[in-house]
């Protein structure tokens, strides 16, 4: 390449580069952000019917603010259950959660109101799902695993309530007698309701799913688990935990998963990857998840 050609390329490149400009701005809409109260049950403390409940309260901050969300320790948290009972959740410094010894029964609704002198008040109407009374069966070496080898066949059955959308969570554990502990197992996604986009895998190995494919029917989920967990170990056993979860919790996790996926691509123009995280906190952010949880022990 001769000097003239090189100069031509350089000139054209400079012309193009000087035309492609960029700048950094702080748009006005982001400047006047009003922080909100964010209420969450945390992952290990999703409200379970029949158990004491707790929640975490934090603030939200503007996206261009250098502040990070912080714990709110002096909020007033009151509840009114539909059986007429009232009470408060009080801040516990050790757990950094608002707690109460009150428990709520399946099928009830609770109105939660949270006030703070510096932030707009928020509220939430929380419903505890009905129990589902699952039953289970175990057939030692009664199935085949994905490699075609004999496997333990576990099944759990329950009746779905018709006419409404119901949501569930399933977990699988086995009890290791030698360490006296429940060890989580990954739930095989061999059932159509556990596969595809309408189910969500959780960090604890559990799967959230909907009744889209079996609304109003008796549902049986079958799982084949590779041999070796319980067959040779006296005292070992399986536990299938089936929870009926609130629709809000399902939608929340669904949006959370979409947001996580979108993050990897960045959030640019358009609405493809700006994911609105579902919330059941009126006037605020976050989620209070509820579930009615039942265990099926199989040995």
């Amino acid at each position, binding site marked *: *390449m001769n000097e003239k050609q090189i100069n*031509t390329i350089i000139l054209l490149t400079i*012309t*193009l580069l*000087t*035309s*492609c*400009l*960029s*700048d*950094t*701005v*702080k*748009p006005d*809409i*982001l400047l006047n*952000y009003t*922080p*909100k109260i*964010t209420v*969450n*049950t*945390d*992952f290990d403390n*999703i409200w379970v019917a029949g158990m004491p409940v707790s929640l975490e309260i934090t*603030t*939200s*901050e*503007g*996206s*261009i603010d*250098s502040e*990070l*969300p912080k714990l709110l320790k002096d909020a007033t948290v009151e509840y009114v259950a539909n059986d007429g009972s009232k009470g408060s959740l009080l801040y516990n410094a050790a757990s950094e959660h608002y707690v109460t010894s009150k428990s709520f029964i399946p099928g009830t609704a609770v109105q939660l109101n949270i006030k703070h002198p510096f932030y707009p008040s928020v509220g939430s109407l929380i419903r505890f799902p009905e129990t589902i009374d699952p039953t289970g069966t175990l057939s030692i070496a009664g199935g085949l695993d994905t490699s075609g080898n004999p496997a333990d066949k576990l099944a759990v059955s329950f009746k779905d309530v018709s006419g409404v959308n119901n949501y569930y969570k399933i977990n699988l554990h086995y009890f290791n007698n030698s360490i006296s502990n429940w060890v989580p197992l990954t739930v095989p996604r061999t059932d159509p309701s556990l596969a*595809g*986009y309408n189910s969500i895998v959780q*960090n604890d190995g559990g799967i959230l799913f909907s009744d889209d494919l079996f609304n109003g029917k008796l549902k049986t989920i079958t799982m084949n688990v590779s041999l070796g967990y319980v067959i040779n170990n006296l005292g070992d056993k399986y536990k299938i935990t089936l929870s009926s979860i609130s629709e809000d919790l399902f939608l*929340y996790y669904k949006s*959370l998963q*979409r*947001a996580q*996926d*979108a993050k*990897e*691509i*960045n*959030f*640019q*123009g*358009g*609405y*493809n*990857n*700006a*994911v*609105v*995280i579902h919330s059941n906190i009126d006037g605020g*952010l*976050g*989620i209070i998840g509820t579930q009615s949880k039942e265990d099926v022990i199989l040995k």
Partner: protein
Amino acid sequence: MLYNGTPIYNSNHIFGLSSVFHQRSIANTGISRGISSAKYGGRLSSTISLESSKTGSYSGVKGELEITPINAGIYIESIKKDLSYFTLSARRSWIDLLIPAESRQQSVNANIYDYQIGYGKYLKNGDKLDFSFMNTRDLYFVSLQTTDTANGNIPITYGITQKWYNVLASVNYTEQVTSQLKRVHSIHYSSYKNKNDYSQETYDFNLLENPLVEEKLQRGIRDIGLKTDWEYAFSNEHHLSFGWQNTFRQFLLGANNLISKNYPNQSDIDTIVGNPNYQTSIESSFYGEDKYFFSKDVTLDAGLRATIYSFDGYTKLVAEPRFHLTYFLQNNDVFKAAYNRHNQFVNQLNLGRSGSPDNIWVPATGEILPQNSDILEIGYERKLGRQFSGTVNAYYKNMQNLSAVSNLNDASNPEKDWKSSVVQGSGKSYGLEFMFQKSKGDFTGWVSYAYSKSVRTFPDLYANEFLFTFDRPHMLKVYGNYTNEYSIWNFSFNYLVGSGQLFTLPIGKFRDINGQLQLEYNTLNNYRSPLYQRLDISAGRKNINSSLSSEWRFFIYNVLSNRNPLYVNADFANASYTELVINRNYLAFVPGVSYIIKF
């Protein structure tokens, strides 16, 4: 977009910055923004119909050679009046040819080309045959070299290649059966394919052959269309048009060829994930329309288009009524009113940016239903003397089963079912447009103003209705051109001012159920860029002292250097989510020059 009646699925070069059409390859442009005759269907959006030159008022050969900073092109037109025509236009980028061939193969390469060929002939019986062919291609390649210091300074080369191309071909046979009956029979083929290749080669001198991994992703769409269109002047009052159109549309939804070879102690792998086979949909339409001359002042086009569509066991029959009333007033003013219904059986999944070659064409299915729209439009046109005219148009459009991508990762992953990443919703748009035009004299041009609003509702994306990404309520456009046959100079300008483009930015951040930070959006498309303003100017100078006619053309895009963002990117500059940075990219003061030789 149609080119000589054949759909083109990607009309962009350079990732949307340039069109694949040479300006001289287009003789006529027709734009139908929703209201169209029953002959046209299958689209909700505007249809742009481009026609190459097919006739002329002379016999002879003429042409142009053109060179610009990006490419060089040629246009040749040979016409035997009332007998035949031949046209050729071709362009190719030339900057890459200055780079040594070895560097183009091993380091970096970028080139584009397009060419269009048209040929037509009148037969002895008065019938006519038209052939049209078009091919476009973009190729980009970059290779990066690095060293694996963890494993003994082994050189590694990464290669990234992206290539996309269109192939279009059509044959039309026009019969003038009687003075009242004309028939046009056509067959067309249109193919678009996008290929992304990634490779990694490790230079390990201890091995006979270098370990290599490759990933070759390809997607595409192709049409084979057959149609016959009839026009029959039944009487002075009734002009009928009717016909049958059939399209076999094939989708290559994504096939990823994974190759791994020459790795020590490992078997070579050559496997395909996704679906390497085209899946076919069939769209068969019948239409009929009566242009009824109710009186010398009033015509009514009343038509019906019926389409039966099938794909993978899903079948849908739709009927689309079309009405178009035209009322010629006494002073040559025209009043128009129209209603149309349209259905669309093919969708383009927008994977982040309109016009991107990576966007995927997908069929309507039982889960992702065909899109449809109802359009109402009224208009008034008025002649203002011999040189001026004005128009006013108002429209309302209601759309159902619109599609949007809910999960970019899954939608672009050929291993996953694209349908699980698509949500459907509805939309509506309405607007009012004014245009004032001067069409004669040395100075011509027009001024237009449009007020419009466009909203979308996608319950699975956001609970409430939100503004559509391309919603721009106000837009004023002014175009002017000065040409004097005695002057060697001609000038033109284009000025636009209006509402800025919408983007979605996070307004807040909060802790989620897992203790992680999440972003808060108050609504989608919540940030409107500042006022969009752009002035483009151009000037041409004819060279009359040469034996060959030639012309210099100069232009400057965005001469005022207004910051009209093409792309907004917002991200946290650090992992602790404390510094949100919003970058805007824009083009400002882009000069250009071209030299044209005419023969």
